[in-house]
């Protein structure tokens, strides 16, 4: 019983959430970098998934990296981190779904997660995405520490 409680405590700890937050935030910032720099390649990747209609592919490819970047930055900084976590969670769901669909289609496309060239999509990709999604959910529920936005209000509350 004690062990369960201890484990639960560890798993629900705010510093764990902080670590995950920084990790996920950093991940998204990193991921967004190449996409922003090479919009044409990313647009190609988007198109390869065959989910976004042709007229929206380019604008999607231009805006999505910025959404990732902003959300990542917000998450790392701890500003509106829950909203950012929600957006990142939704993105994760979207990626996972898209990957799953294309796996079902048996489409031999690259993931395009970090680079245009690279790994092929696979079940591993989906598993990885699901882990990241769980981390994001954890952040959504347990993140409290070192939030830039909450710094003053927390200080005042302590006073």
């Amino acid at each position, binding site marked *: 019983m004690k062990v369960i409680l201890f484990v639960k405590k560890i798993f629900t700890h705010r510093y764990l959430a902080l670590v995950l937050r920084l990790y996920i935030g950093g991940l998204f910032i990193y991921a967004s970098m190449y996409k*922003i*720099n090479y*919009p044409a390649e990313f647009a190609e990747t988007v198109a390869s998934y065959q989910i*976004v209609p*042709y007229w929206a592919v380019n*604008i999607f490819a231009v*805006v999505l*990296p*910025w959404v990732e970047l*902003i959300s990542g930055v917000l998450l790392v900084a701890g500003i509106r981190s829950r909203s950012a976590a929600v957006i990142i969670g939704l993105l994760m769901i979207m990626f996972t779904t898209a990957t799953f669909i294309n796996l079902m289609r048996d489409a031999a496309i690259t993931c395009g997660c970090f680079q245009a060239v690279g790994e092929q999509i696979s079940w591993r990709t989906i598993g990885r995405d699901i882990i990241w999604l769980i981390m994001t959910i954890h952040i959504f529920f347990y993140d409290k520490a070192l939030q830039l936005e909450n710094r003053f209000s927390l200080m005042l509350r302590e006073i």
Partner: protein
Amino acid sequence: MKIANLKQANDCKQDPLMELERRGFLLKTLRDATCELSSLEDTEKMAEVFLLISMGTLGITQGFVVLIDTESLKGQVSSRGVEDQDIKRLHESVPQIIQQYFSNTFQKDAPLPIEAHLIARDGFLDNHFFPPETKALIQWNTDKKYSGLMGLGAKILTEAYTDEDIEFLLGLTNSLLVSIKNARSVTIIRQLNLDLQQKNIEQEEALKEAERTRKELDSRLFHLNALYDTTHELSGLTDTKKIMETFLLMAMGTFSIEQGSIVLFDSEEKKAFVVYRGIEKEKVRGPRGNDIDNTLPQFFEGAKTKDLTPMKAQMVPPERLLNNPVCPIDASVGLLFIINDTCLGLIGLGSKITEQSYSAEEQELLTTLVNNFTVFLGNAKSFETIQKLNADLEKRNIQLNKTIEELSASRLRIEVLERAKARVKSVIQSEMKRTRRVSAIDFILILVVALGLGIASNLSNPDGINLVPQVWSHKPSPMIDAHWAKLKYDAGTSLFVDARPSDFFKQRHIHGAINLPLSLFDFVYMMKFSRLDPNQEIIVYGRNISRLYDQEVAFKLTSRGHVDVKLLSGGLSAWKEKDYPLAP
């Protein structure tokens, strides 16, 4: 002269003239006797004269007169020619005589005729009261004091008493009675006079007494006035020292005293009040002003042991006043008074201006005055205490007011702070809630910012891409349906171009189609299409939801000069549905 007249009367008895003369003589005698009797005052003498005249005129050898006081039962006997033993017997038998002759008359207390009357004549007497020779007895009842009897013995010449004799005797007796009455009146008047004189004296004494009383009343009035004045003067004062001074002045004025002093000692506050008058400052003894040495407490501690009650002054014995260390003057009278357990005082008064000593009354007055004075002192003390308390109260009130003001100010400040705190708290809480809340605005904001930044970066990026699909700006190529295309395919007149990337082409394509991926268009075109007839019919296919490869390739081919470029309607899937030949 009387004896001569008597002889003459006897001589002329025989003849009528003589008789007349005799009568005249008797009348004359009667008148003379009346005159003589009326000039007398003493009843005894009167009785004697009366007896003498009676005997002398009628020639009688012996006789007696008893004047009887019926009240005291005493008789006064006058006699002539009566034996001593007879007189003695007569004296002794006065009560019996009264019993016999007067009892019935006087007990009734009725007015009686004052006339005399004859009781017996010519030796009738068988009783033993009267002398044996008594021949005639005359009785009169005038009043209680001077009734009486007259007894007469035998006549010298003739044995028997004539009617004339009796008439004469009765007349004479009446004359006597009148005289007695007169004499009595005189006596009464004299007595009255005496009484009056006595009364006068008494009156004078009473007058003197009244005068004395008046004086006493005056002094009482004076004392009362003094008391009233003192009370009046003191009543307006509340200051202890002033009360003492005023009282001393009043007391000295009231008793005309040269010197006086009052010393008041408060052992609780260790304070002494000293007031004196009529003495030069240099000669003052003992405590001066408010100086306190040990003598004061010692003296008053000593005085306290005596049973003093508050507001009751006590005279100090004179021997204690001599060289008294506390009293500033040489006092001839001193009073010790006590106001409460801690406050004692001594009043010393010098001798009077008149050099008289203090009378008991004055001492009493002085005590009363001092009692009064102590009451005022007590009041003044109470007043002082009250004032002190009042001042304290006022001070405390001010402090309290200040505290209240401060408190209310603090309260206000606290209220403001509370409000601020509540406000800050609510702000913090709402902020906390807000930060914890996921709002649609965040999403919209993030999306809008991302859109803006994306577009901006894309525009500034040299590798930027077109946000609007290029195909929208091209002239759309004509479409050809799968069936018609099959006919052309069968005829072998048309060239089928697969526009998709080579990966897809490798997976499945129309049999005989040439792969012309968009990304490798220039290269592949140069390799495979450059020598193609521009009029050759080309049917382009290959699109998916995300990419309209066929359109773009068709556009590029058209722009390279190919005239007949068509798009396969429905694409590969339409071809596939109809089971037209596919590879691989």
